[in-house]
Structure formats: structure tokens, C-alpha cells
């Protein structure tokens, strides 16, 4: 059974909420699909249902936005995965019990991004996790996954996490920032103009770090994690401008939890399935769909907004969402695109910030050289760098060919954790670009779907 809707918005983070709102406000029929019980994505992650307490300002903002979306008449389809996209813009949905097909006249993808995995010796030890994992536990469940935290990565989000951890009573042994931020940030000072909320949050985090005497080291990074059965300590080192550890600068630091905050990889899978042309933009997180000024991809009627089209943060996602919501509705005869130019200066401001962020916080080549031959690259299938090397010796020269020979990328996560790692290693070893080496082809279902739910259509 195929349902019809005018505009389907996939993902209810800042981008998707704003897209759904802008579209619904024109009178268009909108369905907003999200896989969480509590829509909000990562940015607006709500505390768990059943928990009572004072929500953070982000949470209040997210909750308010959701209420507006509902009030504007959009239909919210929660706890539902979009697992495939078929001809004529038919989306396949699954809520765990059954499958629904939703045919839309326009689709706005706001599927966000996920933390970039980084491989180094010991990264698979329990206790090493993404900054997003720590953040999620903190925000949603008010749980600390460890006692002594080492934050390694880049960007201001680490400051925010460190401050939140400190306020929650955790011990943060250090924050390692891979980029030599000062004085480079001063070159981009113009991009900070207007970013008052961000500057305020950054300053507040900074003061918290100072108050708790949390060491912040710019131009430093993790080299290895050590421990018998879980993380017990880390080896860290000063990095050169290409993020390569400087020999002789290594230190050992005792910790039980390492929060890896190395930016994000866009969730562009659905845009690929819908046939949108992609381009390789490492400064935006990797492979992203190409878009026009109205956020439309090369697939007619398919729009992409927010981090899934290039890492840029919540404020940019909101504006892009508004633009896509207005544009897609206008294309279907609801409202006009007149309101879009009014968003131009806000868009430009956020793009400047995005460019500054990319200039400062795109990791250097050294980040992908931390892995050794006995380091696991594919966590699911436990494929090491040496296994990949053997596949290259047999003539494999793309990520997909390496996958077919080694099984790297064939496991449960379908390459989300390892494709970039393997691709970067192949590029380095063969002298080709990561774009040439490619990642892995997407196939439905893009999330595991219960067999019993697939055979049952509603």
C-alpha cells in the first residue's frame, strides 16, 4: 500500500523541523519522518521520556519548534526508519512492525551526520567511543560512561562537551585539539561576527574549563590507547601542521574513557539512493550531494539540507531547511519563492562560519596515518590494515574491491565506520585521490529491517 504526500521530510533535527515548518506554513501537505521516539536529532536531543527536570535551552528550542511544526499541520511519523528509495520518489518506511511506502512529490533530506571514526592502536578497546556517544548519554540519560575522560579531536564542540562533563562531576584529564587554532582563528575573525550564541556558548565553556583546571592543548592528538580489557591510558603527542605526531613529544596520560571528537561524516546515503549526483568535499565531511541555491539536488524534487549535505551546524541547517521548505512548496504551487532572498544574509553568515570551521578544523593527512598494520580498520569483521594491504597487493584499488576481497565493510554497519578509513589508506598507498578510490555503494535496506516487518505491508 503506497500512501501519498506532497512533501516528505526525512529527519527531524534542526534542518528537518525548519523545512517541515516552512513547507507546512504554505499549506502544503507535509510528513516529517524520524527514527527517534523524541524527534530532535542530535542537536535538540531531548532527555528521556519519564525523566523530569529543567530542560536545557536547546531542548526547549527543539520542543517549541516541534510544537510549531505540529500546529502548522505537518504529520509526524516517529520511530520510523526510511530504509529505501524507489522510482518516482517512493520512500520505504519501517516502524519495526510493518513496512509502508510513501510516495512524495518532493523530498527534503535532513538526515544529519554521524561522528567520524578514527583508527589508531587500541581504538577498539571498551572505553574508546565517539564524542557523540558521550554527549548522547549525558544529554538524554544523564549518565557518565566513565570516570576519567580524555577528549581528543578538534573543534569547539569538544569545549562544550568538556564543560558539560565537568559540570556533571566527571574528571576531564585533557582536551586535545588537533588543529593549531591560535593564531589561525584570528584570520577568520570576520566569520565570527554575528555568531553571538556560539561565541557565548564557547566563552561559557572556556570559563568552565578554566574553573575546573582542565588542560586544553592545541596542536595535540591521540596516538594510541592502551589497556588489558578496556582503556587504561592513552599515548598522546604534539602534532605537526599535517597532524602527524612529532616523535619525541609523546606522553602517557591515564584515563578510562576517550571521547573522539573528529567531526562528522554526512549521512548522504538516501540522497545517493535517490540518484543525486555527489561530490567529494573533505572540508565538509566527505561525499555530499551537489545542490543549487534552493537546496535542490540533481535529482529533481529531491532537496538536501543540513549536515547531510555538508557539515555546517544547526543554525545553517535551520536556514537551509527553511529555504528548501519554501522552495519545494512553491514548486508544488503552494506559496512563492519570494521569501527566500530574505534568508540570503543569514545564509551567507552561516556559510562564512562553515567555511571558517572547515579551514580551521579539517584534519590533516596524519590523522589517517595513526593506524598500524595490526590496527583494526573494519570493526564489524575485524579486518586489519594488513588485510587491506594484502588486498591491494592482489590488485584491488577501490574501497569496494577491497571490501569484496577482505570482507571489510560487509558487516552489520555496512561500512559506516570503516569506509573512510579504508579509502584513505588505499589513497595513501596507491597515490590516488580519495574521490577516485570511492566509498561503498549504498543498497536497500540502508538500516537493518526485520524480515517479519518487511513481508508485512500496511
Amino acid at each position, binding site marked *: 500500500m503506497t500512501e501519498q504526500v506532497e512533501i516528505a521530510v526525512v529527519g527531524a533535527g534542526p534542518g528537518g523541523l525548519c523545512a517541515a515548518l516552512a513547507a507546512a506554513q504554505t499549506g502544503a501537505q507535509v510528513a516529517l519522518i524520524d527514527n527517534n521516539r523524541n524527534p530532535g536529532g542530535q542537536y535538540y536531543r531531548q532527555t528521556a521520556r519519564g525523566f523530569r527536570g529543567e530542560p536545557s535551552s536547546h531542548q526547549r528550542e527543539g520542543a517549541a519548534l516541534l510544537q510549531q511544526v505540529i500546529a502548522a499541520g505537518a504529520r509526524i511519523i516517529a520511530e520510523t526508519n526510511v530504509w529505501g528509495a524507489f522510482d518516482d520518489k517512493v520512500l520505504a518506511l519501517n516502524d519495526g512492525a510493518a513496512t509502508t511506502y510513501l510516495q512524495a512529490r518532493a523530498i527534503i533530506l535532513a538526515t544529519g551526520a554521524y561522528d567520524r571514526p578514527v583508527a589508531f592502536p587500541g581504538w577498539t578497546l571498551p572505553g574508546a567511543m565517539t564524542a557523540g556517544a558521550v554527549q548522547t548519554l549525558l544529554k538524554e540519560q544523564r549518565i557518565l560512561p566513565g570516570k576519567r575522560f580524555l577528549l581528543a579531536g578538534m573543534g569547539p564542540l569538544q569545549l562544550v562537551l568538556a564543560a558539560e562533563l565537568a559540570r556533571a562531576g566527571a574528571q576531564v584529564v585533557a582536551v586535545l585539539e588537533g588543529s593549531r587554532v591560535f593564531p589561525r582563528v584570528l584570520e577568520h575573525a570576520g566569520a565570527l561576527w554575528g555568531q553571538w550564541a556560539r561565541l557565548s556558548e564557547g566563552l561559557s565553556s572556556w570559563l568552565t574549563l578554566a574553573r575546573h583546571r582542565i588542560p586544553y592543548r592545541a596542536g595535540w592528538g591521540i596516538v594510541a590507547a592502551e589497556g588489558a580489557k578496556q582503556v587504561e591510558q592513552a599515548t598522546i603527542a604534539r602534532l605537526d601542521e599535517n597532524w602527524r605526531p612529532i616523535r619525541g613529544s609523546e606522553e602517557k596520560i591515564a584515563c578510562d574513557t576517550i571521547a573522539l571528537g573528529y567531526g562528522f561524516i554526512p549521512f548522504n546515503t538516501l540522497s545517493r539512493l535517490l540518484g543525486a549526483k555527489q561530490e567529494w568535499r573533505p572540508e565538509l565531511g566527505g561525499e555530499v550531494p551537489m545542490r543549487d541555491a534552493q537546496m535542490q539536488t540533481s535529482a529533481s524534487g529531491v532537496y538536501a539540507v543540513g549536515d547531510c549535505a555538508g557539515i555546517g551546524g544547526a543554525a545553517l541547517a535551520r536556514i537551509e531547511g527553511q529555504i528548501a521548505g519554501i522552495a519545494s512548496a512553491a514548486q508544488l504551487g503552494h506559496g512563492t519563492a519570494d521569501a527566500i532572498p530574505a534568508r540570503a544574509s543569514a545564509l551567507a553568515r552561516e556559510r562564512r562560519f562553515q567555511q571558517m570551521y572547515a579551514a580551521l578544523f579539517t584534519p590533516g593527512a596524519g590523522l589517517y596515518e595513526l593506524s598500524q598494520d595490526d590496527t583494526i580498520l573494519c570493526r564489524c569483521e575485524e579486518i586489519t590494515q594488513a588485510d587491506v594491504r594484502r588486498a591491494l597487493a592482489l590488485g584491488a584499488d577501490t574501497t569496494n574491491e577491497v571490501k569484496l*576481497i577482505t570482507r571489510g565493510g560487509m558487516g*552489520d554497519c555496512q561500512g559506516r565506520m570503516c569506509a573512510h578509513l579504508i579509502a584513505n589508506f588505499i589513497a595513501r598507498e596507491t597515490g590516488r585521490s580519495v574521490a577516485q578510490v570511492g566509498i561503498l555503494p549504498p543498497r536497500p535496506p540502508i538500516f*537493518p529491517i526485520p524480515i517479519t516487518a518487511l513481508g508485512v505491508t500496511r
Partner: protein
Amino acid sequence: MNGQRTIGAEAVVIGGGIVGCASAYYLARRGVKVALIEKATIGGEASGRNGGGVRQQCRDRRERPFAIASVKLWEGLPAELGFDIEYVRGGNIRMATNDARMELLRREGAEELEDGLQVEMWDRDELRRRAPYLGEVFIGAKYCATDGAANPILVTKAFGWAAQRLGATILTRTEVVGISIEGARVASVTGRDKDGELVVEAPWVINAAGPWSAALSHAIGVEVPVEPARSVIAIVQRCAPLFREFISSHDLGVYARQAREGQVHVGGTNVPAHTFDQRAPADVLEHLARGAAEMIPALRGANFLRSWAGTLEMTPDKVPILGHVDGVKGYILATGFSGHGFCLGPIAGKLVSELVVDGAPSLSLHEFRLARFA
């Protein structure tokens, strides 16, 4: 700039699937200077996307001796190719949900025994005893113990690597754009890669290009009646070892095999859609899900992880086209395997090498001649 490159060879194989790679391997083993041209990657099409069944039973009678001969080759392949191709002789079960199917299987089984293939019929009790993981819907089956399965990608690539070690030239990401004829004999194959055109001169051309063999052949006036058909497979997330056999039910329209790491591959047995399109449609995925759940109840708590589709090449009578072509000396067709060529890959390759080197195949190819369609 892009000057034309020329390679001299004794035989050129078009197509890097299992038939092409096995042909290159057996030719190289016989000392023939062979080049193989593949438009994308070795094993990148049907040979790398199929269910992996190495099956003798349940075949058209014309194919049966070839499957039996091929399995004899399969036995020695892991050692011969020097690679772990995950070949497992776990048996093949063809189940029945109704009496009519059982009767068909019985008659086929009698014929198979006549032809020297050991099979056994299982009634409901025997089926439950031998394959307790199967659903209640089945009333019996035919079983062949010497059938099995392998990793399709690795086998195809292993044939290619072995051929290379024996001196074969393997050209990938090279599309054949023409075959030339001089007098009444093939003379060369022209390929195009990222650097431009290259010519492989050879007195023998083997067309093992599967669904693409028709277009290539048409260009030299030889009509090859193969039509593309889409076959879909879905895999189930890795689960505990449930079964070692390759199982199939035409009544439910699905087959399944559990690979070494535990992922279960589920494919369809219904008539595949006539298309080059390689996207798995939703209704086929639903069909595979329903079939899998009914065939193996333990999968009801499991998830589909991924799917893919591949392109088969179907002949009008669903058996291959293998052998010389009247009027074009040196041109050998090795195509039309119609969705059940994986088992036959090794024997097809060996027969190709015999045609070239010995002038005669060790098994009569009469039933597979192109001329039967005239």
C-alpha cells in the same frame, strides 16, 4: 597522445566473469598466450552477485553431465587456485510443499540416478530429521550430497589471479568496442580504457560477456539470442550457524545459503524481470522476506541487512551457448548460462581451452550449439 596500443596474443577472452576467467586460466595452463578484457572489474557482475550454489541436481538433462564434470573440477580448485574460495560441500536440498512437486522431483531423481548423479528422496519425516531448521510447510525433498556452495566473488577473482600467475594478461576497466574479422576468421579485439584505444590481435576470440555478449556479437553479424534478466539477493544479518546446505523451494519461490561468517543469502527462483536494471525493487525484497521467514522459521527474529541485484543472460531454452560459430573461424561463444552458470564455470573454461588447443572438446557441445536457434 593517445596512440594506439597493440598486444599480440593467441587467444583473447571477453568478459571477466567466472566463465571468462576460468577460460583464461585453463588456456594459460595449456601454455596459450591469453589476454582477458573486462569492462569493469573481475567478478563484478553476475559471477560475483549470485547465490554461490555449486549444483548438479535439478538441471536440464542437457546440462547434467557438464555439472557433474564441473564438480569434479571444483573438488580440486582450492588447492589448484591457491586461495580459500570457501568451497563447502554441504549438500543441496530441493524441497516440496505439495504432492505435485514431490512427483516432479521423484521423476527428476530417477533420471538423475540413470545419468549417474547420486540423489535421494526424503519424505516428511526424513526431511524433519535431516533439516530440522526448515519450516513446517514442506512435505518432502530431493537431496544431493555432493552439491555445495562457494564464495562467488573470491572464486572468480581466484581464477583471474591464477591465470595471471600463469602468464595471462588481464585488462580491467577496458570496454570492448569492436571485434575485427579478416577473411573468415577473427583477427583482433579493440578495447577502450581511460587512456584510449588498444587492440589485442589474436586468432581466437572467446565471447564470455554474459548479458553483453549479444551486442558485441551482433556487431560482427552473429546473432546471440540472450536477454538480460534481473536477479535479486537479500542478506540476513549474521546469525548463529543454522544450516550448511544450499536450500531451495520453487513453491515458495526462494532459495537460501548461509555463508561462512553467518550471513544468510536469500534469492528468488521466480522468473526474473527482463531488464539490465540492477536495483532491487521493493516487491521483490518483500517476496524474499516472506519466503525466507516461511522457509526458515528461525529467521523470523532476524533482519535483512542489504540487498543487491545482478544481470543474468537468458537463452530461449535456458541452457548455455557454448562452442564454435559457423562461418566465423576462431570465434567461440561461452554465454547464455541463464542464471545457473556458477557451477558450470570451471568446466566451461576447460572446454574452451580444449576447443582452442585440442580442436575438440572432451564433452560433446552439440546441445549447446548456437545453430540450434536457427
